[in-house]
């Protein structure tokens, strides 16, 4: 198999992305023909490391990232002309005027580091500097699986850029050359971190549940994926839930001719496995959910081999 990059996304949060990724990773890592790297790109709330912890804490590498830029005001250069405020240099409303001191003040949470103030100020009283935006953490799990994840510094505004860094980081691993599968745990939603996650991928697994919001958010996620022309398959979690949305979900998938990778029925083994910090396929290999996930893996493998 040529190297394939795939991600699990969902639109709606809390439908089982991380649990599925952890189990698929655990199966793939054991397979003799797969060389896997796993990434957690949910940089706002990275959780995969809870189920796939490091072999030893000493081997965990944490690297500070500076993907965000912010403006700095240089008071000594300012001639208090107030142009920056009056002429609305900043489109993000991060430039306010301190009436007492008669100088601009920067709202650091709102600042996007675009540099408009720096370029437009006639006295060059603004600078743009990189600031810490988060961390990238990488290690090997107890079974020797390489795992990389990102974690945003709260209030640093650019999750998308950090996601791209996590993906690039995988390429710097020594093992990358022999790697033939990169499996990504994606963020919820369909906005900038998700777009950064799916860009350049070969295949997407969209996981959902048969509830009104599960279906609604799945449709939106797939609409986004279609814009990027990436093939995808659907996994239905809690597939036996008693809900009027069952019919609608099945009708939607059938009508759109989407591929179903598998269905996982509601199974308490999944939260139980999570509480023991293990993928369900390792914690309860005979459980209905483990069997379903093994089937999903087989089907996925077949699809990837044909891409």
């Amino acid at each position: 198999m040529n190297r394939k990059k795939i991600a699990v996304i969902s639109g709606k949060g809390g439908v089982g992305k991380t649990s599925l990724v952890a189990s698929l990773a655990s199966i793939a890592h054991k397979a003799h023909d797969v060389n896997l790297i796993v990434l957690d790109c949910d940089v706002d709330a990275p959780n995969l490391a809870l189920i796939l912890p490091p072999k030893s804490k000493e081997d965990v590498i944490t690297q500070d990232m500076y993907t965000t830029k912010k403006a700095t005001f240089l008071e000594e250069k300012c001639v208090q002309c107030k142009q920056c405020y009056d002429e609305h240099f900043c489109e993000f409303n991060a430039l306010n005027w301190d009436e007492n001191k008669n100088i601009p003040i920067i709202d650091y949470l709102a600042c996007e580091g675009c540099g408009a103030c720096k370029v437009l100020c006639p006295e060059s009283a603004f600078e743009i500097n990189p600031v810490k935006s988060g961390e990238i953490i990488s290690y090997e799990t107890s079974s020797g699986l390489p795992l990389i994840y990102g974690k945003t510094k709260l209030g640093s505004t650019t999750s998308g850029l950090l996601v791209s860094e996590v993906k690039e980081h995988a390429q710097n691993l020594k093992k990358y050359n022999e790697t033939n599968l990169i499996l990504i745990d994606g963020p919820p939603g369909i906005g900038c971190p998700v777009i950064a996650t799916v860009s350049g991928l070969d295949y997407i697994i969209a996981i959902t549940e048969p509830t009104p919001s599960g279906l609604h958010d799945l449709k939106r996620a797939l609409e986004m994926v279609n814009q990027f022309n990436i093939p995808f398959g659907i996994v239905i979690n809690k597939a036996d839930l008693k809900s009027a949305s069952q019919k609608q979900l099945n009708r939607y998938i059938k009508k759109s001719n989407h591929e179903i990778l598998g269905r996982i029925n509601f199974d308490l083994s999944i939260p139980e496995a999570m509480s023991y910090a293990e993928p369900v396929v390792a914690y309860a290999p005979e459980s209905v959910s483990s069997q379903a996930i093994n089937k999903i893996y087989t089907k996925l493998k077949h699809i990837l081999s044909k891409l």
Partner: protein
Amino acid sequence: MVKPKIICVTGGKGGTGKTMVAVNLATMFKNRGYKVLLIDGDVENPNTYLLLNGKLKNKTEVPYFLPKILEDKCNKCGFCAENCATHALLYIKDSIPILISTVCSGCKLCYKICPTNAIEADLKVIGWIYTSSAFDIDLFIGELKPSEARSAAVVKTLMKTLEKDIITDQNKYDIVILDTAPGAHCDVEELINQADLVIPVTEPTRFGKLDLLRIIELINLLNKEYRVIVNRSSLLGYKEKFLLDLEEKGIEVLGDIPLDEDIVSSYCQGIPLMESSRNSDKNGMGYKSFNEIFEKLMEWGEFSK
């Protein structure tokens, strides 16, 4: 100016029950005679109206700046591309810059600095704002257009709509409830920042705890008052340990909601559990715990009609 009290329901982790809690709190305030507005700020996946069987009305576009290069005016100097922080303008010597619209931040710098005024302020639609109403609750809903990235810009427009509404009629609403996206991203931050009280909803799992601690870090960063709701608290019997853990960390809990089939069915029906016209089980665990939570909420905030 009398402002309505703004309560922000958030949570860090996805699928913990934010929207379910927001919808039921709105319903309980309404039951007590408060004028309630519910704002769906999860613009990537707005779901509140689904839980209320509401119809979307008054669709308005959320426009966003995009540069338009006037080819006859452009002297191909490349100054715009040189100063574009996100590299949304690609310049090849002696040719007209090419726009890569997906990475444009909308900062307008190119438009402001072009020496030949060859850049026009064009607008693209990045999402929509709707209104709706159901069960005597007004709704504002924001929706990000799929494949667009700037959810925070849609959230900002949503909050501006509220501002305009309050300016025209100060007494229109007593209570505004904000429902946020999962995560701790800029759109969530924007909404927490607007709130008087913040309610993070979590679940008693490892994931729930980790993400809760992160969202609390953000809430603290923004200097807001918060109290936690633990949803699905009967899951696997961790409730006591989980609550104890929060107590040790000095995290105040507003209440907990055990697993309850009636909550799931109300969710799928599109009628809130606490809606008086719904035939909810008044002795059910969900119903009782919501009433308890509401009493504590009334003690916590000073709400006036």
